[in-house]
């Protein structure tokens, strides 16, 4: 079957060059421990240093400001916990938003149980936080603002530059999770005005299990989670994930080099997809900001039907997508992001997220739209919520004949 992958916010295919460099650093003479003094160790140490330079350059940072981690979640935990621990004499207040990734939300909530006070700011109907709300929330006890650069579920880009200016003027440290934005839109730590920033390898055609935390030089932050050896300049204990680090270095370099080209390409595809879905299907709404959104991101809610049913039906047609419905989240609640945007439970259950990648093309979009229209019609016809739709099934359906009562239906 033809398979079309439209779930690039979940993860991306690894670029072949990136896979090659990983393989290289798993084999040949590149197996050394970078802490070792001998030739084997020095050889991989050099590779790590170069990767660090590449990652730093891709976000406008200095190599000394990059700490390699096991991924976005670890980097978020390290950033938030480290600032909290290093600044608890100064204050105990942390500001975040209701639509953060769980790696951030659950970390600040955990700190909330350890004597810290947390302000979770609301968002507007597009999922964006207002900079003035951030400003108003700052008290003399505020030690950290942590707000994502772009939202994973609805693609909305947050006003990070504006918040950066506010944070700096009030002397509050500012962390952003740039896992979704990095490689899709420009990410520059100085332009954004952030003190800490998280990136992840597998969202930019790199491998899973590798990420990085940027910590601006002079930031009052400390390593507070892992106890162990002196790796990463005493900032992250544990023997380095050498193949992952080399892969992240190359993936970052390639993402930055192709940013403009990829961004333009994806935007055209995305705009076509959004236009077609809104035109060809009734009772559907775009979620997230119509303009201030990631170039590869389209997300919708479909009335009267449920997200997992859509995903299963799409998967049967070879199309991979995702949803924020309760059934796909592992809990009884639909996406916290959609609910925070003021979307009702009922409608949030019918969410669908399509995230494009550079491997997608026009035909993929056309195939998707064609199949989606059929799927939505079919599920709506089965739904007790949609009053205008009647179910019909082809009469050659064996199972229906067995059941005996489908024959009457056209």
């Amino acid at each position: 079957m033809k398979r079309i992958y439209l779930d690039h916010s979940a993860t991306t295919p690894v670029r072949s060059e990136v896979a090659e460099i990983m393989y290289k650093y798993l084999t040949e003479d590149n197996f050394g421990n970078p802490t070792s003094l001998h030739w084997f160790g020095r050889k991989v140490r050099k590779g790590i240093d170069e990767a660090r330079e590449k990652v730093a350059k891709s976000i406008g940072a200095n190599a000394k400001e990059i700490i390699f981690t096991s991924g976005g979640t670890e980097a978020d935990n390290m950033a938030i916990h480290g600032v909290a621990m290093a600044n608890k004499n100064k204050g105990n207040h942390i500001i975040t938003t209701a639509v953060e990734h769980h790696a951030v939300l659950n970390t600040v909530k955990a700190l909330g149980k350890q004597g810290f006070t947390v302000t979770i700011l609301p968002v507007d109907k597009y999922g964006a936080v207002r900079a003035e709300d951030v400003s108003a929330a700052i008290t003399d006890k505020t030690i950290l603002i942590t707000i994502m650069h772009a939202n994973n579920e609805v693609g909305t880009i947050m006003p990070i530059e504006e918040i950066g200016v506010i944070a700096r003027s009030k002397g509050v440290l500012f962390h952003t999770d740039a896992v979704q934005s990095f490689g899709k839109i420009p990410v520059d730590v100085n332009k954004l005005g952030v003190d800490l920033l998280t990136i992840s390898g597998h969202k930019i055609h790199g491998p899973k299990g590798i990420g990085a935390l940027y910590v601006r030089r002079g930031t009052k932050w400390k390593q507070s989670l892992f106890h162990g050896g002196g790796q990463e300049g005493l900032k992250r204990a544990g023997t380095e994930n050498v193949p992952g680090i080399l892969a992240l270095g190359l993936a970052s370099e390639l993402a930055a080099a192709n940013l403009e080209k990829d961004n333009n390409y994806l935007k055209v595809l995305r705009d076509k997809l959004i236009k077609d879905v809104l035109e060809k299907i009734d009772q559907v709404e775009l979620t997230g900001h119509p303009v201030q959104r990631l170039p590869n991101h389209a997300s919708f809610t479909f009335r009267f039907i449920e997200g997992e049913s859509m995903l299963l039906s799409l998967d049967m047609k070879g199309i991979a997508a995702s949803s924020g419905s309760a059934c796909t989240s592992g809990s009884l609640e639909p996406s916290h992001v959609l609910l925070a945007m003021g979307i009702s439970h009922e409608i949030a259950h019918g969410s669908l997220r399509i995230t494009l990648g550079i491997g997608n093309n026009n035909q993929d979009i056309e195939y998707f739209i064609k199949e989606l229209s059929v799927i939505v019609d079919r599920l709506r016809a089965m739904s007790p919520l949609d009053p205008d739709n009647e179910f019909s099934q082809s009469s050659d359906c064996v199972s229906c004949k067995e059941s005996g009562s489908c024959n009457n239906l056209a």
Partner: protein
Amino acid sequence: MYSEKVMDHFENPRNVGEIIDADGVGQVGNPTCGDIMKIYIKVNADIIEDIKFKTFGCGAAIATSSIITEMVKGKTLDEALSISNKQVAAALDGLPPKKMHCSNLAADAVQAAIEDYRSKSNNKS
């Protein structure tokens, strides 16, 4: 994560639709939770002669609705009432653990339809 049987019932749901002159209608769940099942029954001499369903929900919700229509069709009301949600899940070769509560409501929907039928016929007599 779903058994082949679940996928079969999801792909080819049996007895979808409404019965306009139904003798009993049962609806369970609510849109907030993400699952609603509506069952229509036609009863003759205490036997479920025809049954149809409409469901808003995930794959498991649709599959359980579909299979229960096959399980109770032609059965007496008491036989139909004795079927539990657990038996419905078993008939589908099992459901993922997290689906056992939220989406496994089909037996409840049938029971609600039968109750509706019985209360209506009691009122008539």
